């Protein structure tokens, strides 16, 4: 059974310039213990999708459609109290910037303890012991000192570890991570990625990892969903995605990313700029930048074509370009369910 099932999720923000359609009919499933990377550039809708799972969007000027079923319960239909319980139990979140996510006026120890008292009902002494254990779990080298420190007194890597400790305090089944290593130096990023992978395995966590970095996705994920213009345009097991990308945007992103040993060869950029989410085209949002564009791409939204088991691409050209693929079959509904 899936732990999380997102069906036809759409999120719209009302702005002065019109409705920003940040997420459009996004569907995916997550099994317990599965690590999914939501991959995309700025404005692709990856972070908005993640926040919808927690029901974090303020009700003002926001319209959320579709369903987010967490262990069978629709997050959007719960009252605030029930949602609060969900956040403190089944699911928790790690943010990009620990400096802004942590409270500057309380010590790290106090912040971890507070979480434990609030959500787990521990008394102060028990909370203190557990806080110490949690810092051991995230491999903080001198936990006592860290507990007594304020966020500004410790390094960026330590702050991120402290935030992971807080996120794990309530023993969640699902961890949502929003670019948790983007603000870190590369040597520290390597440590945090390794730590998250290690914790994921040991605790059997399901993780949704939002990132703009193909390399990070390759390091951490079992599966990846590539987002563009508020839609999932391709989804596949991560190995499959890197071996045989089947959407022109994914291919373009891989060609445009600077890799080791590419010196002397010109990069192949994706021309143009990402779409305006206020005025999304009727067809494929990537069509204006796509090297393979055909007339239907400008008119109708491509359905989700299955390229291989568990590998889908929302591109009109899949049948023509991957005709040799034995597993080829178009999904009937054009959305969701890749099994």
């Amino acid at each position: 059974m899936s732990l999380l099932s997102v069906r036809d999720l759409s999120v719209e923000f009302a702005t002065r310039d019109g409705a920003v359609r940040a997420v459009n009919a996004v569907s995916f499933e997550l099994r317990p213990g599965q690590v999914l990377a939501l991959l995309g550039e700025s404005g692709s809708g990856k972070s908005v999708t993640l926040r919808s799972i927690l029901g974090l969007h303020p009700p003002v000027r926001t319209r959320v459609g579709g369903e987010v079923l967490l262990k069978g319960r629709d997050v959007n239909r719960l009252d605030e109290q029930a949602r609060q319980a969900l956040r403190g139990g089944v699911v928790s979140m790690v943010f990009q910037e620990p400096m802004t996510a942590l409270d500057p006026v309380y010590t790290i120890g106090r912040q971890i303890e507070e979480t434990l008292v609030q959500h787990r009902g521990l008394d102060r002494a028990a909370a203190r012991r557990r806080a110490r254990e949690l810092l051991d779990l995230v491999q903080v080298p001198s936990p006592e000192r860290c507990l007594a420190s304020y966020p500004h007194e410790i390094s960026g890597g330590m702050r991120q570890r402290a935030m992971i400790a807080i996120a794990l305090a309530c023993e969640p089944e699902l961890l949502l991570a929003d670019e948790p290593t983007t603000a870190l130096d590369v040597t520290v990023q390597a440590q945090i990625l390794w730590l998250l992978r290690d914790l994921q395995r040991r605790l059997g966590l399901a993780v949704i990892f939002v990132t703009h970095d193909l390399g990070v996705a390759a390091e951490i994920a079992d599966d990846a969903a590539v987002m563009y213009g508020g839609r999932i345009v391709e989804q596949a097991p991560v190995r499959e995605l890197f071996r045989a990308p089947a959407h022109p945007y994914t291919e373009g992103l891989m060609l445009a990313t600077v890799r080791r040993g590419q010196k002397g060869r010109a990069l192949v950029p994706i021309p143009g700029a990402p779409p305006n989410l206020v005025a999304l085209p009727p067809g494929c949002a990537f069509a204006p930048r796509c090297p393979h564009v055909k007339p239907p791409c400008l008119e109708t939204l491509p359905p989700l074509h299955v390229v291989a088991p568990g590998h889908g691409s929302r591109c009109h050209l899949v049948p023509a370009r991957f005709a040799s693929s034995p597993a080829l079959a178009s999904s009937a509904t054009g959305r969701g369910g890749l099994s």
Partner: protein
Amino acid sequence: MSPTPGLEARGRTGTAPLLLTRGLRKHFPLRGGVLQRVQAWVRAVDDVTFDVKPGETLGIVGESGCGKSTLARLILRLVEPDAGSVWFDGEDVRRALPGRMKRLRRDMQLVFQDPYASLNPRLTIEAAVAFSLLVHGVGRAEARDKARALLGRVGLDPRLYGRRYPHELSGGQRQRVNIARALVLDPKLLLLDEPVSALDKSVQAQVLNLLQGLKTERALTYVFISHDLNVIEYVSDRVLVMYLGQVVETGTAEALAEAPKHPYTQALFASAPSMDPDRRMERPPIAGDPPNPIDPPSGCRFRTRCAFAMPKCAEVPPPPVTVAPSHDVACYLYEPATVPA
């Protein structure tokens, strides 16, 4: 030190470097208390020496707080160094009088990381590009024509974009404006401080290709600062690796990528994600965060995170040794190679 290091370096390498620094140092005081006394020093840049030949791209790579951005500002004298010298085109930059300095800054232009913060929100992009020409005494009509031509070259049609304001452009477009603005005075050297770090990958490639094209067309010399090793390896001829204000290794981009010598350079390369799900990191290459540049470790500043640290590493900072032609490492693990004179 020779009074004219330009000539000395010419004797050694054949071509005179366009830019060279010798023993560059900058420590920023941290003041506190009622009397605002100096309580500590941030050792941002310590004893940095390098040459950049005309037409070359020197990459400077390092993590946050390693002093790479301060270094760019020292070269332009936007920050006055405490010690050491900067020579540009055979001239001692530190001795240049204000009028001469203005002229030198025409030839050395800086492009910043944040393309939005570095543009005046109240100037159209055409006016922003023409502005420095006006400052340097070029007539209004000529300045406008030059600005338009350059905007066209960086891929922003002046008829479509010239009258727009920075907030109406995307990040990549803004960085193109900054590049046009830096080039409008026909400089010889461009100091690029994380020029593509704030951009999405697909746009990064556009800007990197543009920079490579402009470099060839205009016979430019680049000092390219970045924390991204892949980008540095891609754009650079030679690379300088900095750690906490000091240079730990210099060499050609190929030599560093294939056989990094300094334990820090090795860790840096090993920490970069592989882009291959089948070759994931076994374990993190090094532990810990870079220490605070306030009161950095004695001796070799990397020793607190180094797996090979020896007692003598804590005593005296290791001097750079030449391990191969134009490959220098500041680490006690290496003996100088016997290079025939």
